[in-house]
């Protein structure tokens, strides 16, 4: 079945919204929540064991899609660095009146620092807007997958999923 994911290499919002790991808009508006962008049945389940609140379920067989129980999820982000697919994000739509906070896994060095202004990119790597780095967590438990949190305008919350690897050659537009 051709899809945006298999044709271009990243999932469309429609593909994501019809998967069991993508929280409903109404839930996201209420407070921090995980966003799981894992829409193919692959043999993988570390996310399930990673969540201390039992909010992610893969079950048997291990190829089931991860399902998020958004009511149990607090958006703590513990699962983010545990996903080998780097497919889990956390979104806080209540960060401020105009901005959302997005946390994502990041494995490129040098790591950004809190306070840096960086280029936020969408799933296809296109520059979306400028963003402020709020936190960078690189604890030993993350095993070298840093979790970066940025502040972005709320209207881009469904679009932005990372930051440009290098700023050169990335025009904001």
């Amino acid at each position, binding site marked *: 079945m051709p899809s945006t994911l298999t044709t*271009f290499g990243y999932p469309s919002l429609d593909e994501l919204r019809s998967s069991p790991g993508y929280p409903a808009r109404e839930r996201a508006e209420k407070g921090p929540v995980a966003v799981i962008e894992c829409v193919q049945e692959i043999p993988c389940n570390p996310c399930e064991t990673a969540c201390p609140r039992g909010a992610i379920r893969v079950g048997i067989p291990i190829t089931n899609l991860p399902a998020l129980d958004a009511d149990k999820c607090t958006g703590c982000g513990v699962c983010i660095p545990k996903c080998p697919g780097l497919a889990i994000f956390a979104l806080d739509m209540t960060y401020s009146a105009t901005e959302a906070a997005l946390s994502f896994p990041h494995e490129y060095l040098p790591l950004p620092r809190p306070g840096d202004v960086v280029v936020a*990119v969408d799933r296809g790597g296109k520059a979306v807007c400028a963003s402020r780095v709020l936190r960078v967590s690189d604890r030993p438990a993350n095993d070298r997958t840093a979790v970066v949190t940025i502040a972005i305008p709320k209207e881009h919350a469904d679009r932005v999923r990372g930051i440009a690897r290098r700023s050169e050659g990335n025009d904001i537009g």
Partner: protein
Amino acid sequence: MTEFDVAVIGAGPAGLAASIEAARRGCRVLLMDSNLRPGGQLVKQIHKFFGSKEHRAGTRGIDIAVGLHREALEAGVVFWPDTSVYGVFPGGALGAVRGMLGGEPRGVVVRASTLILATGASENAVNFPGWTLPGVMGAGAAQTMINVERVLPGRKVLMVGSGNVGLIVSYQLMQAGADVEAVVEALPRVGGYGVHAAKISRAGVPILTSHTVLRAFGETEITGAEIARIDESWTPVPGTSRRVDADLICIAAGLRPYARLAMLAGCRMTYSSALGGWLPLHDRAMRTSVPGVYVAGDVGGVEEASTALEEGRIAGISASERLGMIGAADAARDREEAEARLSSLRMGPFGRPRYDAKEAIYEEGANACPRP
């Protein structure tokens, strides 16, 4: 002459797991690998692995290798690094050369009543004008350079092939500081896992499906490549060709079982396109058509480290059974757990074709592969 109960060739996840299971059941096990470090493909894998707890999912490949090596030594496995097995002689003796990477190469002959072949896979080549220039290399070789030898083979990369290897090596080249200009894929769909593709897409790498490389430019080393869209018959579509600047073209056109030693040992071969090509026929217990010769991992069909681990465990149990270290009932029970996990790994859109192919092979193998 060196004598062991079990000789295991290849210290990837399959060979390591097989050695551990056999040694824990009391077999005297010799594990050999042509590389210095145990782990096979795992040595180059700095990314976190898929799978479940039993396969140490979420752990980086290299760390999985270190853990397995430790377990093997604790179980009493004798490990010979830098040992290349070049032949199987009539009667089952193995010819090997030790010390090719360090010191004086010297030949040894190893005798073992039971042989486990875990020799992994070979990379497929793609040829186009310029493919023999320096700067064109297999994705596996590029991965060894960045992750093991810590040298960057190029700064601007064109990746040919969008299977998991092409996607992961693209990502790791970027982590090492290179730019990946594009990934071209001849098929109309991305070959590897969507999450790996999404990772490099976020970094701005275009994945061009229905595209191929027509030629490499350059005199003494490559300076770029011509790529074009292709139609269903793989013919370039006129007017779609363009130049990509690159100083490295990486080929990730799939893997095929590396089964030469199995052929020398006399194993009957069978063909499976879903598993990468010709492979030694085997049954569910990883027995081949030759009594006392077992296979495990990519050599018996190209899959993943998680499946290689499980197949290795099964082969180690079967070898112990043959050597009388455990009874048939115990062996069957021990294998069952691993078999169940194997089946669950072979589900979903990526696993299902491999499941079907393996089941067909097991069925054919059930008659052709003698039980102890």
